[in-house]
């Protein structure tokens, strides 16, 4: 009897400590649900701060090595980059197109040398290897399931202001649209459109979700008038597009985009996209695509508009095997094609 006595007192003690523990540490999270709209706003604010705290150490500033200038003027805005591996920074190709060696300023203010390791000029991506170890890379998010309305933050060296102490700036917004196509010598084939402010210098920086995970690289903005500044229309290369080329970039290979060799009806509204011409000897020809085929799916993605087909194809590097589901006559069939290297003018 006597030796059984300690048992209940232990249980009571345990319970007490559990309650105290919950009161002391668990309160912050419960506030949001329990205490009305003001606390929800507070919880939301804290989430943005937390996401920024997680994301910021993975964002760097990039500039060309400072050359002493006669007039002593500061260098241009430069760009940003995101640590994608401990020794590798992912940025926009247009940030590093005019050189091989760059100065990379970490978010803690340290400056390290960086060398361009590999490029994807059409996809506007480049990998810079930096001369330091042990840095924590960004956590990659699920950009494919990002939806219109998702809150996001953009982190980068806005207007070159991070050059002082390396600390990038954060701006807040939402995903405005997904699967945006923006043509040009640099093609944003599957871009996330967002309304967070990104300005010159933000190029190559990160778009993160509110859990601090990387959704994309912020590279392109629409501008009004002549001045290049944010009007709330930014485009990011999404993480799932980066994943298509990242391994090759890490191996030091430059990326060449793929070429299929079909011309399709751009004006017909969907569903499906009608092939009107197949270039003889092209991957489309060898893959048995024919004029008149109605393309329904590309790699399992529905193409209900000509822009979507362009969108889906433009992000694929040469050598990618693509599966098409298509309607030929009354039959629905599948065909495969291996994309050839694109012979277009490189930016």
């Amino acid at each position: 009897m006597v030796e059984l006595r300690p048992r209940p007192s232990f249980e009571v003690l345990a319970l007490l400590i559990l309650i105290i523990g919950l009161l002391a540490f668990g309160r912050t999270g419960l506030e949001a649900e329990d205490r009305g709209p003001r606390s929800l706003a507070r919880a939301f604010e804290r989430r943005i701060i937390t996401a920024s705290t997680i994301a910021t150490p993975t964002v760097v500033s990039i500039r060309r090595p400072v050359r002493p200038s006669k007039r002593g003027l500061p260098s241009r805005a430069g760009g940003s980059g995101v640590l994608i591996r401990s020794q590798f920074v992912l940025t926009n190709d247009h940030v590093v197109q005019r050189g091989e060696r760059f100065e990379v300023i970490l978010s803690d203010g340290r400056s390290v040398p960086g060398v361009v390791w590999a490029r994807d000029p059409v996809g506007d991506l480049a990998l810079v290897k930096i001369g330091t170890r042990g840095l924590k890379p960004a956590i990659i998010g699920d950009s494919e399931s990002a939806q219109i309305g998702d809150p996001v933050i953009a982190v980068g060296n806005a207007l070159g202001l991070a050059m002082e102490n390396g600390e990038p700036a954060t701006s807040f917004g939402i995903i405005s649209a997904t699967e945006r196509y923006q043509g040009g010598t640099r093609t944003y084939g599957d871009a996330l459109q967002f309304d967070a402010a990104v300005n010159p210098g933000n190029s190559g920086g990160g778009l993160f979700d509110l859990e601090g995970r990387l959704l994309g690289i912020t590279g392109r903005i629409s501008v009004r008038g002549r001045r290049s500044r944010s009007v709330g229309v930014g485009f990011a290369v999404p993480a799932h597009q980066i994943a298509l080329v990242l391994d090759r970039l890490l191996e030091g290979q430059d990326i060449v985009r793929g070429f299929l060799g079909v011309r399709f009806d751009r004006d017909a509204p969907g569903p499906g996209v009608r092939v009107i011409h197949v270039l003889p000897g092209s991957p489309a020809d060898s893959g048995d695509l024919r004029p008149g085929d109605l393309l329904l799916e590309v790699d399992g993605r529905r193409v209900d508009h000509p822009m979507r087909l362009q969108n889906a194809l433009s992000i694929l590097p040469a050598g990618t095997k693509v599966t098409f589901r298509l309607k030929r006559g009354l039959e629905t069939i599948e065909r495969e094609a291996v994309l050839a290297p694109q012979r277009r003018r490189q930016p």
Partner: protein
Amino acid sequence: MNQAPGRPGRPERAASRLRLFPLLALLAAFAAGHELAGQDARPPKPIFRAELRSLAAGQRPSVVLIESRGRERRTGGLRRDLFRLPEAGAIGTSVEKGVGVIVGPDGIVLTSAAVVPFENPTILIWTARGRFPARLLACDPSVDACLLKILEPTPDKAEPWPIAKLHETKDSKDSEDSKVVGEGLALVWGDPFGAGRDGRPSVSLGLLSGPIQPAARDIVYPHSVLTVDAAINPGGYGGPVFDAEGRLVGIVAPLVLSERSDSLLRVVLPVKPTLAGLRQRLAAPSAWLGVLVAPDPGVAQGPDRRPPGLLVTGVQPSSPAELAGLRTGDSIRSVGQDVVTTPDQLAERLSREAIGAEVVLTVRRDGAVKILPVTLGRRP
């Protein structure tokens, strides 16, 4: 019994487990606290995302993209063009693009007049159901809003269109149409720079403020309006603005305050009074003169000295203007007692008249002043 040497018996084990329990509980509570505060390695539960997603997804079906083509720009309407000033009577076909929102189950679309600024425009509308032609029903030049109707190939078999939930004022004190309830989160739909080439609009987040009565560029709205700080750009005209409960608050009608500094007042026309004004015009269309005009700056000195007016650049056949003897090249000085120097002023002045009313135009022709009485007609 079969116990291995050195391992404690059952009671001792239970006791030692219990001794550990408080420590574990403390650790668990600590971990829980940290996780909820969002600092754990495991990603915290998304906050606010589901709400924004479902708001956007709920609004999307009622949002449409609009493209209009026409040769002649309508005269009048308030000059609140965001990035380009319309030229009344400009020659050649031009295209305007913008956004609208379905407000009637039979495919009635509310948009800005800047999206359909032409006489007899050809209109195409991209909906979540596909692309359709549309017809202009009515415009209200006092606020620059228009109603369109989506034309379906088989109207009798047509399914009802998904309409936007309208913002209804709850308080009986605010039930007047002139009163607008504002402030709070807003989702603003648009097609900035024509980025939605596959017919899909995009959305931007901001805060609503107001109501206000903007006093800019002598533009006077007949009711108060709201403002929003979300991103608004070319292609954003007529963009629907929804509140945090997914109700349609109004449509975008931005005002340029200064073209040099590119500063914008992002005006939101409140949906209730705007729709009420348009419905009134549907029931009783505004009076029609039938001229194309351009501002005539006038000449201050020299033999050709003349005061500013409105240069007639075209007279529509069989219009009240033609019947009254108005000619291309005339300069309209005033309507009744009111001096007019801009197309907007003329339209605003005419909108106050009833169909069949007689107004007196003071016109300058070849240096001489003429008085022309005109009986206003109904727009054909």
